[in-house]
């Protein structure tokens, strides 16, 4: 296929140029999130407990599951459960207030 390079290069150019004209502002950084740690899991657990209404069945169940998951090492899932528990509790609170 001696003639392939031309259209192939063209297609590549389409691939690179079209999707993202904003790439020029890209900043290479060594940034890290702190909300994916075990500490944050504990912090969320404490936050949940400090909220009134956290003993409602659903938040309580989610909170327990979250804590257990964090303890077993599934930090990401655990955090997600705790966050849902907090969201539900906060939602109930604002509904009630």
């Amino acid at each position: 296929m001696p003639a392939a390079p031309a259209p192939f290069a063209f297609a590549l150019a389409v691939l690179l140029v079209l999707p993202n004209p904003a790439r020029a502002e890209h900043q290479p950084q060594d940034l890290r999130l702190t909300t994916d740690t075990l500490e944050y899991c504990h912090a969320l657990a404490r936050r949940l407990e400090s909220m009134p209404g956290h003993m409602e069945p659903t938040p309580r169940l989610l909170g327990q599951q979250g804590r257990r998951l964090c303890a077993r090492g599934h930090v990401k899932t655990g955090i997600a459960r705790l966050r849902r528990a907090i969201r539900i509790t906060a939602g109930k609170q604002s509904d009630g207030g």
Partner: protein
Amino acid sequence: MSERLARPPPPRLLQSAAFRFALLFMVIFSVAAGLLVAVLWWGTAGAIDRQTVAAIRADTLALMDRHRDAGPLGLVESIEDRMAQDAEAVTIYLLVDSDGRKLAGNLEHWPAGIAGDGTWFRTELHHDGATSEARIHRRDLPGGLRLLVGRDESERTQLDIVMAEGMAWSLGAILMVGAIGASLVRNALQRRMAPAMLTAQGIAAGDLARRVPVSLRHDEFDQLGATMNAMLDRIEALMSGVRSVSDAIAHDLRTPIARARGKLEEALAAARSEERLRAAVEEGIADLDNISRIFQALLRIAEAEAGARRAAFAPLDLSAVLSDAAEFYEAMAEARNQHFETSLPEQLDLVGDRDLLLQAVANLLDNAIKFTPPGGVVRLSARCDAGVAEIAVEDSGPGLSPSDRERALDRFFRADVSRNTPGSGLGLSLVRAVAQLHGGEVRLEDAQPGFTPPGLRVSLRMPLP
């Protein structure tokens, strides 16, 4: 020679027109596919992008409002609240004070080298042991506080990857299909061209009888083949015209040349006086003139038969041409005590070769006047009838017997009765050639059927355009 005529090898891939056509098609197809992908991209990844930006902007404005209403403490609380409720784990916040100390948020530290208030940027982000892309917006708040609000863009990055993969695969498919298509088209073209090529090669090698086989498809190749065949027919007609002239020269010029030569030889051997010799030389010159006249007539006939003079066709008024010729020959008829009658329309427009038509009519009139006895009648008429222009010359001469009529149009035909009349015998043959050149025909009839002598009527019938 034989080397040059050898079949040329099929063109190399890039030289092959078919391949280049297929390639062109492929490029056009690729461009179309590229445009499709671009639109798709703009509609999906682009939409996600715009949503993300809108969400960040709304979030930022809400937080700034909160800072204005409740101060830094309220802002910190708000940020922590949002992070705690972010079940999808996509939000990114960082609030630092004027010393760069972190007050709230989930970014480990303030990123280096970012531009001032209101800037947008993308960055790589490590979390959960993986790296993803994030889009972040920076706003500065009163009191030296600096706020970063962002969203994780892993979802969009995933989409990018999926689409790029899809595109690469389809590109590969386009190239494959294109390459196969190109070679199919190339083979098909070569197969369809092969008969024409073979014919052309055969003709180049000298076999003029070959013709391109034409299929019933009536496509471009058949048109090309038919055009080639028409061209070849034309060339063959020209060639046969040339050949018939050389045949005629070989067969029929030899006789008068031999006659002239004999006379001169005889005079050289037997002339008793200078006067006799002089007379013989003069006769020889007259014979030569006659030979060159025959030669000239032969060339004209060949020209007309081969259609080489069709280029000289022009619109003309046949009536004017004929009345000219009539005026020219009328004097001669009168000198022979013949009645010369004409019956011409006012105007008769025709597309043709004036010189050849004139000569054809002149030949007919010349013949008629020659063969009509004194007191006889010669009539030139023309008319237009149902899309056919007819020129007729009638005389009251002896006419032609039916058997002579058939041969009368052949070259060098001379009826036995006219052996003693001067003439080359080419007159009618030229008339026929001129008629054929104009797509018409010549008819010989009795001028007055049943009478003795019947006379001759020669008519030249040509279709009008």
